């Protein structure tokens, strides 16, 4: 359900920036989603096809750039992305680690025509 709200926000942001630039058409949207952001691409795409109809963004392509989370091991200084089994450092197996990134969820850019 929550992807509908998210998709409405995506449309609102894209239309606002396109209008400011006096664009007549939006052709591509570039979205960045971190591993911890819990957003389902397919679901966003599904809602997008419906709600972008009859706007200048109709038919635009959504591009999802998935960013893996980055963790930093405070014992051996290794930077890594968490695997399928947990968060421990793959190099020294330490749990003394910190999360550097993974919460991103933003619109990076759009392609427009005017």
């Amino acid at each position: 359900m929550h992807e509908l709200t998210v998709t409405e926000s995506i449309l609102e942001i894209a239309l606002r920036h396109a209008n400011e630039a006096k664009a007549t058409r939006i052709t591509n949207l570039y979205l960045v989603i971190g591993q911890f952001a819990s957003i389902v691409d397919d679901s966003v795409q599904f809602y997008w096809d419906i709600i972008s109809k009859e706007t200048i963004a109709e038919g635009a392509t959504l591009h999802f750039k998935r960013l893996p989370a980055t963790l930093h091991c405070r014992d051996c200084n290794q930077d890594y992305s968490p695997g399928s089994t947990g968060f421990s450092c793959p190099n020294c197996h330490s749990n003394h680690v910190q999360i550097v990134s993974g919460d991103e969820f933003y619109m990076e850019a759009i392609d427009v025509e005017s």
Partner: protein
Amino acid sequence: MPKNLVIVEKILSANDRIAAENRAIFDGAGVKALNLMASPGAGKTSLIEQTIRRLQPRMNLAIIDGDIATNLDADRAEAAGALAIQINTGGECHLDAVMVNAALKQMDLQGIRLVIVENVGNLVCPAGFKLGTHKSVLIASIPEGDDKPYKYPGMYRGVDALVINKIDLLPYVEFDMDYFRQGVEILNPGLVSFPLSCKTGEGLDAWIDWIVENT
């Protein structure tokens, strides 16, 4: 002419703006607010009932209850002695700042010292939507299992306190507290936690003290 517009805007910036408005409403009324999140059945409403019983004699509480349907939770909060407003999200899996804003407009915050927002039972979506509350609290419960921080990291990332409910069930279910705490520590270093049981009352005093200190 084709052109690339660089934007870099957070998708949920509209929600964040309304959340800031909610914060201003709370601050203007001299009220502190908590966003209470957990999976269904972790004990959000039970913790609220226990909190009302212990705190209502000292300060006036109001509860904003988010659920997909029914008034059951608001009724329980009211029965325990607090002012309660129910929000039915009609299917939405989390509360957002707009829903809380609408609830605040129906409430008289005069004389209220603490508002507890009971989010929709869900261990994924509520983490992404700021409500404008001063603190966020997550309830984990023993029967859910010790692997939840690893499976739902987003939820553990942004909270200010962790309640570990149903500790009276520790003798009966497999729950490796060290493994659980290791995951929590990685996601949210130094997170303050309150192991307690809403059923037996064990551990509730420390939780109540934390609320008093933070309101």
